[in-house]
Protein backbone atom coordinates (compact mmCIF):
# COMPACT_ATOMS: atom_id res chain seq x y z
CA UNK A 1 0.00 0.00 0.00
CA UNK A 2 2.54 2.50 1.21
CA UNK A 3 4.52 2.99 -2.02
CA UNK A 4 1.37 3.40 -4.16
CA UNK A 5 -0.35 5.87 -1.84
CA UNK A 6 2.86 7.79 -1.15
CA UNK A 7 3.28 7.98 -4.94
CA UNK A 8 -0.20 9.53 -5.25
CA UNK A 9 0.60 12.08 -2.50
CA UNK A 10 3.85 12.94 -4.28
CA UNK A 11 2.09 13.26 -7.65
CA UNK A 12 -0.56 15.56 -6.17
CA UNK A 13 2.12 17.76 -4.59
CA UNK A 14 4.32 18.01 -7.71
CA UNK A 15 1.36 18.64 -10.02
CA UNK A 16 0.01 21.29 -7.63
CA UNK A 17 3.33 23.18 -7.65
CA UNK A 18 3.56 22.80 -11.43
CA UNK A 19 -0.02 24.04 -11.83
CA UNK A 20 0.67 27.10 -9.65
CA UNK A 21 3.80 27.85 -11.70
CA UNK A 22 1.95 27.44 -15.06
CA UNK A 23 -0.87 29.68 -13.82
CA UNK A 24 1.56 32.34 -12.62
CA UNK A 25 3.77 32.18 -15.73
CA UNK A 26 1.16 31.87 -18.51
CA UNK A 27 -2.39 32.51 -17.26
CA UNK A 28 -1.90 35.57 -15.04
CA UNK A 29 0.06 37.64 -17.64
CA UNK A 30 -2.54 36.89 -20.35
CA UNK A 31 -3.58 40.13 -22.12
CA UNK A 32 -6.64 40.48 -24.34
CA UNK A 33 -7.80 43.70 -26.07
CA UNK A 34 -10.86 43.77 -23.80
CA UNK A 35 -9.79 43.74 -20.09
CA UNK A 36 -13.12 42.25 -18.92
CA UNK A 37 -12.84 39.46 -21.46
CA UNK A 38 -9.21 38.98 -20.36
CA UNK A 39 -10.28 38.60 -16.72
CA UNK A 40 -12.99 36.09 -17.60
CA UNK A 41 -10.52 34.11 -19.76
CA UNK A 42 -8.01 33.99 -16.86
CA UNK A 43 -10.65 32.72 -14.42
CA UNK A 44 -11.84 30.06 -16.91
CA UNK A 45 -8.30 28.92 -17.69
CA UNK A 46 -7.40 28.75 -13.98
CA UNK A 47 -10.60 26.85 -13.13
CA UNK A 48 -10.04 24.52 -16.11
CA UNK A 49 -6.52 23.69 -14.94
CA UNK A 50 -7.79 23.00 -11.41
CA UNK A 51 -10.60 20.77 -12.75
CA UNK A 52 -8.12 18.85 -14.92
CA UNK A 53 -5.84 18.37 -11.91
CA UNK A 54 -8.70 17.04 -9.78
CA UNK A 55 -9.89 14.75 -12.60
CA UNK A 56 -6.42 13.21 -13.08
CA UNK A 57 -6.03 12.85 -9.32
CA UNK A 58 -9.40 11.03 -9.01
CA UNK A 59 -8.64 8.81 -12.01
CA UNK A 60 -5.28 7.73 -10.56
CA UNK A 61 -6.78 6.97 -7.13
CA UNK A 62 -9.71 5.00 -8.62
CA UNK A 63 -7.43 3.00 -10.91
CA UNK A 64 -5.02 2.28 -8.06
CA UNK A 65 -7.83 1.12 -5.76
CA UNK A 66 -9.57 -1.23 -8.22
CA UNK A 67 -6.27 -2.60 -9.57
CA UNK A 68 -5.17 -3.43 -6.01
CA UNK A 69 -8.51 -5.14 -5.28
CA UNK A 70 -8.23 -7.12 -8.55
CA UNK A 71 -4.65 -8.17 -7.81
CA UNK A 72 -5.62 -9.23 -4.29
CA UNK A 73 -8.44 -11.41 -5.67
CA UNK A 74 -6.10 -13.03 -8.22
CA UNK A 75 -3.53 -13.74 -5.50
CA UNK A 76 -6.22 -15.35 -3.31
CA UNK A 77 -7.44 -17.53 -6.22
CA UNK A 78 -3.86 -18.61 -6.99
CA UNK A 79 -3.19 -19.41 -3.34
CA UNK A 80 -6.35 -21.54 -3.16
CA UNK A 81 -5.42 -23.38 -6.38
Amino acid at each position, binding site marked *: *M*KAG*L*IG*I*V*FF*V*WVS*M*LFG*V*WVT*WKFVVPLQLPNPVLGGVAKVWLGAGLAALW*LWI*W*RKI*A*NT*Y*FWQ*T*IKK*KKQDTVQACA
Partner: protein
Amino acid sequence: MFTWLLEFAIIFLIGLFITFVAVPFAVKKTGITGVDVHKSTKPVIPEMGGLGIAIGLVAAVGVSYILMPTAGLKFAAFLFTALIAGGVGVIDDLHTLGPRIKPLLTAVACLPILLLGTFSSHPYFPLIGRIRLTVVYPFLLPFAVAIPANAVNMMDVLNGAMPATCSIVIGTLLICAILFGQHETAAMCAALLGCLLAFYYYNRYPARVFSGDVGSLMVGASIGALASIGRMEVVAIVTLLPFIMNAFYGLTSIGRLYERKEIVSRPIQLLETGQLAASTNPNAPITLTRIILAAGPLREQEVVKNFLILTMVSSFLALITAALILVGVGV
Protein backbone atom coordinates in the same frame (compact mmCIF):
# COMPACT_ATOMS: atom_id res chain seq x y z
CA MET B 1 15.07 32.97 20.39
CA PHE B 2 15.45 31.20 23.75
CA THR B 3 12.68 33.35 25.25
CA TRP B 4 10.32 32.42 22.40
CA LEU B 5 11.04 28.71 22.82
CA LEU B 6 10.49 28.97 26.59
CA GLU B 7 7.14 30.69 26.00
CA PHE B 8 6.09 28.01 23.49
CA ALA B 9 7.06 25.31 26.00
CA ILE B 10 4.96 26.95 28.77
CA ILE B 11 1.94 27.34 26.43
CA PHE B 12 2.33 23.72 25.23
CA LEU B 13 2.51 22.37 28.79
CA ILE B 14 -0.54 24.39 29.91
CA GLY B 15 -2.56 22.99 26.96
CA LEU B 16 -1.30 19.48 27.71
CA PHE B 17 -2.04 19.57 31.43
CA ILE B 18 -5.44 21.29 31.33
CA THR B 19 -6.73 19.02 28.53
CA PHE B 20 -5.45 15.94 30.35
CA VAL B 21 -7.47 16.94 33.42
CA ALA B 22 -10.49 18.32 31.52
CA VAL B 23 -11.27 15.38 29.20
CA PRO B 24 -12.48 12.91 31.89
CA PHE B 25 -14.40 15.74 33.57
CA ALA B 26 -16.08 16.80 30.28
CA VAL B 27 -17.20 13.30 29.25
CA LYS B 28 -18.54 12.62 32.75
CA LYS B 29 -20.60 15.84 32.69
CA THR B 30 -22.10 15.33 29.19
CA GLY B 31 -22.80 11.61 29.49
CA ILE B 32 -23.08 11.22 25.68
CA THR B 33 -21.83 7.88 24.37
CA GLY B 34 -21.13 6.25 21.01
CA VAL B 35 -20.46 2.69 19.82
CA ASP B 36 -16.97 1.71 18.64
CA VAL B 37 -18.12 -0.06 15.47
CA HIS B 38 -14.65 -1.32 14.53
CA LYS B 39 -14.48 -3.75 17.48
CA SER B 40 -16.24 -7.11 17.56
CA THR B 41 -17.43 -6.46 21.13
CA LYS B 42 -18.98 -3.12 20.06
CA PRO B 43 -18.00 -1.28 23.27
CA VAL B 44 -19.86 1.87 24.29
CA ILE B 45 -17.42 4.78 24.57
CA PRO B 46 -17.98 8.26 26.06
CA GLU B 47 -18.19 10.88 23.30
CA MET B 48 -17.62 14.66 23.20
CA GLY B 49 -14.12 14.41 24.67
CA GLY B 50 -13.47 17.34 22.33
CA LEU B 51 -14.95 19.58 25.04
CA GLY B 52 -11.82 18.81 27.06
CA ILE B 53 -9.69 20.00 24.12
CA ALA B 54 -11.76 23.22 24.07
CA ILE B 55 -11.13 23.83 27.78
CA GLY B 56 -7.40 23.17 27.33
CA LEU B 57 -7.27 25.46 24.31
CA VAL B 58 -8.99 28.34 26.14
CA ALA B 59 -6.47 28.03 29.00
CA ALA B 60 -3.41 27.75 26.73
CA VAL B 61 -4.46 30.64 24.47
CA GLY B 62 -5.25 32.68 27.60
CA VAL B 63 -1.67 32.12 28.81
CA SER B 64 -0.41 33.00 25.31
CA TYR B 65 -2.18 36.37 25.63
CA ILE B 66 -0.55 37.00 29.02
CA LEU B 67 2.89 36.20 27.53
CA MET B 68 2.33 38.06 24.22
CA PRO B 69 -0.29 40.78 24.88
CA THR B 70 0.40 42.59 21.59
CA ALA B 71 -1.03 39.65 19.61
CA GLY B 72 -4.39 39.76 21.43
CA LEU B 73 -6.45 40.17 18.24
CA LYS B 74 -4.84 37.17 16.56
CA PHE B 75 -5.36 35.01 19.64
CA ALA B 76 -9.00 36.13 19.91
CA ALA B 77 -9.65 35.40 16.21
CA PHE B 78 -8.07 31.95 16.53
CA LEU B 79 -9.88 31.03 19.72
CA PHE B 80 -13.33 32.22 18.61
CA THR B 81 -12.99 30.45 15.26
CA ALA B 82 -12.16 27.23 17.11
CA LEU B 83 -15.00 27.70 19.59
CA ILE B 84 -17.63 28.49 16.94
CA ALA B 85 -16.66 25.34 14.99
CA GLY B 86 -16.72 23.43 18.29
CA GLY B 87 -20.22 24.82 18.94
CA VAL B 88 -21.34 23.50 15.55
CA GLY B 89 -19.84 20.16 16.58
CA VAL B 90 -21.81 20.17 19.85
CA ILE B 91 -25.06 20.71 17.91
CA ASP B 92 -24.08 17.93 15.50
CA ASP B 93 -23.27 15.56 18.37
CA LEU B 94 -26.61 16.20 20.05
CA HIS B 95 -28.90 16.50 16.98
CA THR B 96 -27.22 15.27 13.75
CA LEU B 97 -26.94 18.13 11.25
CA GLY B 98 -27.53 17.48 7.56
CA PRO B 99 -24.58 16.96 5.18
CA ARG B 100 -25.15 20.40 3.63
CA ILE B 101 -25.85 22.36 6.82
CA LYS B 102 -22.67 21.26 8.63
CA PRO B 103 -20.15 22.66 6.09
CA LEU B 104 -22.21 25.86 5.85
CA LEU B 105 -22.22 26.35 9.62
CA THR B 106 -18.50 25.58 9.93
CA ALA B 107 -17.84 28.20 7.23
CA VAL B 108 -19.44 30.76 9.58
CA ALA B 109 -16.58 30.05 12.01
CA CYS B 110 -14.30 32.21 9.82
CA LEU B 111 -16.19 35.35 10.91
CA PRO B 112 -13.85 36.23 13.83
CA ILE B 113 -10.84 36.22 11.46
CA LEU B 114 -12.77 38.30 8.93
CA LEU B 115 -14.22 40.80 11.43
CA LEU B 116 -11.00 41.25 13.43
CA GLY B 117 -9.00 41.58 10.20
CA THR B 118 -6.34 39.12 11.31
CA PHE B 119 -5.72 37.75 7.82
CA SER B 120 -3.46 38.98 5.06
CA SER B 121 -4.80 39.06 1.51
CA HIS B 122 -1.22 38.51 0.26
CA PRO B 123 -0.60 34.77 0.77
CA TYR B 124 2.78 33.20 0.07
CA PHE B 125 3.20 30.81 -2.84
CA PRO B 126 6.20 28.51 -3.44
CA LEU B 127 8.81 29.88 -5.90
CA ILE B 128 6.56 32.88 -6.66
CA GLY B 129 6.45 34.68 -3.33
CA ARG B 130 3.61 36.96 -2.25
CA ILE B 131 0.48 37.16 -4.40
CA ARG B 132 -2.04 39.99 -4.10
CA LEU B 133 -5.60 38.62 -3.64
CA THR B 134 -7.17 41.72 -2.06
CA VAL B 135 -10.68 41.21 -3.42
CA VAL B 136 -10.79 37.41 -3.66
CA TYR B 137 -9.22 36.45 -0.30
CA PRO B 138 -12.16 37.32 2.02
CA PHE B 139 -14.41 35.16 -0.19
CA LEU B 140 -11.94 32.25 0.11
CA LEU B 141 -11.77 32.51 3.91
CA PRO B 142 -14.98 30.48 4.60
CA PHE B 143 -13.49 27.64 2.52
CA ALA B 144 -10.16 27.95 4.38
CA VAL B 145 -11.99 27.12 7.62
CA ALA B 146 -14.80 24.82 6.44
CA ILE B 147 -12.65 22.51 4.27
CA PRO B 148 -10.07 21.54 6.95
CA ALA B 149 -12.81 21.34 9.60
CA ASN B 150 -14.86 18.84 7.60
CA ALA B 151 -11.80 17.00 6.22
CA VAL B 152 -10.53 16.37 9.78
CA ASN B 153 -14.05 15.35 10.80
CA MET B 154 -14.13 12.77 7.98
CA MET B 155 -10.72 11.39 9.05
CA ASP B 156 -11.87 10.82 12.65
CA VAL B 157 -12.97 7.24 12.01
CA LEU B 158 -10.43 5.08 13.83
CA ASN B 159 -9.04 5.11 17.37
CA GLY B 160 -6.30 7.71 17.74
CA ALA B 161 -6.31 8.67 14.04
CA MET B 162 -7.51 12.26 14.48
CA PRO B 163 -5.26 13.44 17.37
CA ALA B 164 -2.18 11.58 16.06
CA THR B 165 -2.36 12.80 12.45
CA CYS B 166 -3.41 16.33 13.46
CA SER B 167 -0.50 16.52 15.92
CA ILE B 168 1.91 15.87 13.02
CA VAL B 169 0.14 18.54 10.93
CA ILE B 170 0.26 21.10 13.75
CA GLY B 171 3.87 20.22 14.57
CA THR B 172 4.75 20.94 10.94
CA LEU B 173 2.86 24.25 11.03
CA LEU B 174 4.71 25.12 14.26
CA ILE B 175 8.10 24.59 12.56
CA CYS B 176 6.97 26.60 9.50
CA ALA B 177 5.61 29.43 11.68
CA ILE B 178 9.01 29.68 13.40
CA LEU B 179 10.75 29.64 9.98
CA PHE B 180 8.41 32.40 8.71
CA GLY B 181 8.99 34.48 11.87
CA GLN B 182 5.30 34.18 12.84
CA HIS B 183 5.85 33.77 16.57
CA GLU B 184 2.24 34.40 17.60
CA THR B 185 1.09 31.67 15.19
CA ALA B 186 3.77 29.36 16.59
CA ALA B 187 2.37 30.02 20.09
CA MET B 188 -1.14 29.05 18.90
CA CYS B 189 0.30 25.89 17.29
CA ALA B 190 2.03 25.02 20.58
CA ALA B 191 -1.26 25.48 22.46
CA LEU B 192 -3.21 23.21 20.08
CA LEU B 193 -0.40 20.64 19.95
CA GLY B 194 -0.37 20.33 23.76
CA CYS B 195 -4.17 19.84 23.83
CA LEU B 196 -4.08 17.21 21.08
CA LEU B 197 -1.26 15.16 22.59
CA ALA B 198 -3.12 15.04 25.91
CA PHE B 199 -6.28 13.97 24.10
CA TYR B 200 -4.36 11.28 22.20
CA TYR B 201 -3.72 9.57 25.55
CA TYR B 202 -7.49 8.94 25.90
CA ASN B 203 -8.27 8.35 22.22
CA ARG B 204 -5.43 5.97 21.31
CA TYR B 205 -6.24 2.29 20.62
CA PRO B 206 -8.32 0.96 22.36
CA ALA B 207 -10.10 4.31 22.72
CA ARG B 208 -11.50 5.24 26.10
CA VAL B 209 -12.93 8.54 24.84
CA PHE B 210 -14.12 9.77 21.42
CA SER B 211 -13.60 13.38 20.43
CA GLY B 212 -17.06 13.72 18.88
CA ASP B 213 -17.74 16.27 16.16
CA VAL B 214 -17.07 18.96 18.77
CA GLY B 215 -13.42 17.86 18.81
CA SER B 216 -12.80 17.09 15.15
CA LEU B 217 -14.57 20.17 13.74
CA MET B 218 -12.83 22.41 16.28
CA VAL B 219 -9.36 21.01 15.56
CA GLY B 220 -9.91 21.20 11.78
CA ALA B 221 -11.20 24.77 11.93
CA SER B 222 -8.24 25.69 14.18
CA ILE B 223 -5.82 24.38 11.54
CA GLY B 224 -7.60 26.51 8.92
CA ALA B 225 -7.41 29.53 11.23
CA LEU B 226 -3.69 28.96 11.86
CA ALA B 227 -3.10 28.78 8.10
CA SER B 228 -4.91 32.07 7.40
CA ILE B 229 -3.60 34.02 10.39
CA GLY B 230 -0.03 32.73 9.93
CA ARG B 231 -0.02 33.14 6.12
CA MET B 232 0.75 29.45 5.69
CA GLU B 233 -2.16 28.56 3.40
CA VAL B 234 -0.20 26.54 0.82
CA VAL B 235 1.92 24.81 3.48
CA ALA B 236 -1.28 23.81 5.33
CA ILE B 237 -2.85 22.46 2.12
CA VAL B 238 0.21 20.28 1.49
CA THR B 239 0.46 18.95 5.04
CA LEU B 240 -3.30 18.22 5.02
CA LEU B 241 -3.10 16.25 1.75
CA PRO B 242 -4.08 12.85 3.29
CA PHE B 243 -7.15 14.51 4.87
CA ILE B 244 -8.06 16.26 1.61
CA MET B 245 -7.52 13.00 -0.30
CA ASN B 246 -9.85 11.15 2.07
CA ALA B 247 -12.60 13.77 1.78
CA PHE B 248 -12.15 14.23 -1.98
CA TYR B 249 -12.30 10.50 -2.77
CA GLY B 250 -15.35 10.04 -0.57
CA LEU B 251 -17.21 13.00 -2.06
CA THR B 252 -16.38 12.19 -5.69
CA SER B 253 -17.25 8.50 -5.36
CA ILE B 254 -20.64 9.30 -3.79
CA GLY B 255 -21.10 12.37 -6.03
CA ARG B 256 -22.44 14.67 -3.31
CA LEU B 257 -21.98 15.79 0.30
CA TYR B 258 -22.91 12.93 2.62
CA GLU B 259 -23.26 12.06 6.28
CA ARG B 260 -21.51 8.88 7.50
CA LYS B 261 -24.73 7.50 9.00
CA GLU B 262 -26.63 7.67 5.69
CA ILE B 263 -24.18 5.46 3.76
CA VAL B 264 -25.86 2.09 3.12
CA SER B 265 -22.83 0.36 1.54
CA ARG B 266 -20.10 0.69 4.17
CA PRO B 267 -16.57 1.22 2.77
CA ILE B 268 -14.96 -1.18 5.29
CA GLN B 269 -16.01 -4.38 6.98
CA LEU B 270 -15.08 -5.89 10.32
CA LEU B 271 -13.89 -9.50 9.96
CA GLU B 272 -14.33 -12.21 12.59
CA THR B 273 -10.58 -12.07 13.19
CA GLY B 274 -11.01 -8.47 14.41
CA GLN B 275 -9.27 -7.14 11.29
CA LEU B 276 -10.71 -4.51 8.98
CA ALA B 277 -11.19 -5.25 5.27
CA ALA B 278 -12.06 -3.10 2.24
CA SER B 279 -15.54 -3.58 0.84
CA THR B 280 -15.64 -4.66 -2.82
CA ASN B 281 -19.10 -3.14 -3.28
CA PRO B 282 -18.82 -0.63 -6.17
CA ASN B 283 -21.45 1.61 -4.50
CA ALA B 284 -19.42 2.10 -1.30
CA PRO B 285 -17.47 5.37 -1.03
CA ILE B 286 -13.73 5.14 -1.78
CA THR B 287 -12.23 6.50 1.42
CA LEU B 288 -8.54 6.58 2.36
CA THR B 289 -9.12 3.72 4.84
CA ARG B 290 -10.67 1.62 2.08
CA ILE B 291 -7.75 2.34 -0.28
CA ILE B 292 -5.26 1.35 2.44
CA LEU B 293 -7.20 -1.87 3.08
CA ALA B 294 -7.44 -2.74 -0.64
CA ALA B 295 -4.12 -4.61 -0.38
CA GLY B 296 -5.48 -6.86 2.38
CA PRO B 297 -7.10 -6.85 5.84
CA LEU B 298 -5.30 -5.01 8.64
CA ARG B 299 -5.78 -4.40 12.33
CA GLU B 300 -7.16 -0.98 13.32
CA GLN B 301 -3.81 0.12 14.76
CA GLU B 302 -2.04 -0.86 11.52
CA VAL B 303 -4.41 1.31 9.47
CA VAL B 304 -3.74 4.24 11.82
CA LYS B 305 0.01 3.60 11.40
CA ASN B 306 -0.50 3.94 7.63
CA PHE B 307 -2.35 7.24 8.19
CA LEU B 308 0.61 8.43 10.25
CA ILE B 309 3.14 7.47 7.55
CA LEU B 310 1.12 9.31 4.89
CA THR B 311 0.80 12.40 7.11
CA MET B 312 4.56 12.33 7.81
CA VAL B 313 5.24 12.19 4.06
CA SER B 314 2.86 15.10 3.37
CA SER B 315 4.41 17.04 6.28
CA PHE B 316 7.88 16.49 4.83
CA LEU B 317 6.62 17.81 1.47
CA ALA B 318 5.08 20.76 3.35
CA LEU B 319 8.49 21.59 4.83
CA ILE B 320 10.00 21.53 1.31
CA THR B 321 7.12 23.80 0.20
CA ALA B 322 7.95 26.17 3.06
CA ALA B 323 11.60 26.21 1.92
CA LEU B 324 10.46 26.99 -1.65
CA ILE B 325 8.32 29.83 -0.30
CA LEU B 326 11.30 31.26 1.54
CA VAL B 327 13.30 31.03 -1.72
CA GLY B 328 10.49 32.84 -3.58
CA VAL B 329 10.25 35.55 -0.94
CA GLY B 330 14.02 35.91 -1.04
CA VAL B 331 14.72 35.26 2.64
